[in-house]
């Protein structure tokens, strides 16, 4: 399969992109199997954020999360021909991601822990995209602070509970899909999600009493809703 070779019925790329947006994931992967690179681009645009979000919450390391997200998407392209529509495409993608994450975590657990003599870069040193309206400093700090607290709480949930929990809460996969991704029994999936929720609630309980944090949550939600409206109007 050659990524540079494009086999498109559309002359105008915008027209093609619009048409691809209306397709289901399962139809897009069929086009990828036929060698259409733009269909793969559409899959990437749909899944990159979801995958990064899921993997980041699993590994808690932005660089590693980025690497694993890219690895997942590369495998989707390289092994596209192996996909058969016996399961939903999202299930297949998250199975790849989950396996990669588990392998990486297993490798890390075998390796001795090393402490770098160089201090980790501060969050403030991260580059900010000036074109992004949400990159307003105070809003960004609020969001990052809240994100850090949530990430810490999530990381404290044992891995065997965290995988089905995140697949359900963040990725909105159905119980049956989670069963396919994890290979667990349906009852086990349900009980693990239930336990993870209870654990997560205990971990975030102090935050739930913090009025300031709750106010921040509402602000973040309001900004995200405004952003979504703006994007819808632009489209």
């Amino acid at each position: 399969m050659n990524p540079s070779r494009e086999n498109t019925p559309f002359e105008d790329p915008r027209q093609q992109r619009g048409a691809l947006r209306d397709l289901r994931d399962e139809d897009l992967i069929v086009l990828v199997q036929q060698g259409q690179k733009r269909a793969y681009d559409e899959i990437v645009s749909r899944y990159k954020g979801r995958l990064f979000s899921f993997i980041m919450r699993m590994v808690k390391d932005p660089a590693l999360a980025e690497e694993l997200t890219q690895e997942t998407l590369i495998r989707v392209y390289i092994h596209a021909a192996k996909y058969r529509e016996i399961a939903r495409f999202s299930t297949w993608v998250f199975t790849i991601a989950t396996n990669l994450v588990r392998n990486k975590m297993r490798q890390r657990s075998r390796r001795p822990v090393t402490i770098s003599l160089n201090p980790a870069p501060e969050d403030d040193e991260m580059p900010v995209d000036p074109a992004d309206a949400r990159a307003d400093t105070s809003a960004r700090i609020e969001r990052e602070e809240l994100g850090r607290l949530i990430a810490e709480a999530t990381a404290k949930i044992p891995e065997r509970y965290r995988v089905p929990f995140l697949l359900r809460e963040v990725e909105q996969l159905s119980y049956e899909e989670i069963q396919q991704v994890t290979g667990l029994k349906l009852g086990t999936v349900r009980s693990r999600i239930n336990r993870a929720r209870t654990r997560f609630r205990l971990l975030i309980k102090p935050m739930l009493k913090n009025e300031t944090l709750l106010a921040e949550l509402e602000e973040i939600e309001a900004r995200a809703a405004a952003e979504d409206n703006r994007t819808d109007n632009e489209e």
Partner: protein
Amino acid sequence: MRCSKARDFLSREIDGLLPPDATAGLLAHLDACGECRSFREDLQTGRRLLAATEPRLPDNFDWKLQLRLNQALQQRAGETAYPWLEDEPAVRRGSWWPAFGAAASIGLAAMLAVAVFLGPQGAPGAATPAGRATPQVAAVPVVEAPANTTAQAASPAASLAGRSDRRSLFGASRGTGLYEAGIGRSVSTGARSMQPGAVIDRGWSGDRLDDLQTIQRLRERNDQLVRMVYQYELQVRTLKARLDSTGAAGLDTGDNR
């Protein structure tokens, strides 16, 4: 309904998976139990928190993905250029030890079998088990070939003579059946006894290397691969030039195409 049961139901209820009859019982419990109502609110707030704090993708993700994808495809093209490696995944993964161990065990077992069944017949004076166990390999020098090669060629075992380039395992002495069959002659004797024009058995490697067609095919494949590598290098240079000219801010992330 007990609180533990109600909380189990709550988890399913917020996923929309609770049957209607159970939902009615749960709602009745929630009306009466403030703790469980609070539990439900916390679960919903937890969901909101997770959604609000979704990690954001790093900058230039698409560009980096494209580069890595190209690398992966190049690597894959290199691997598929050697189909015989595809046929031997165990060797490539370095897991050849089990196969090697099994082959070595079989070989050792075969040698022991030869030692037990054939060794004593050719060893004079080895009638007792103790005689069998004597270290004759070290004690008996390498047997020299008979001077008369024509007599050897005339013997029924002459067809085997050219193949026996190995030393005796059991020190079989002159005049034994084993020796006449060619087993037990020294390497030098084997070389001297070869007739002009005789077919030389060079084993598995000789068969492959002598195949001129295979060599020619490998050369052509090598030329193809060299050309591919050159093209990939050109692509890499082009991409680097684009990267340098556009800079990080103006990278083509796929949305501009």
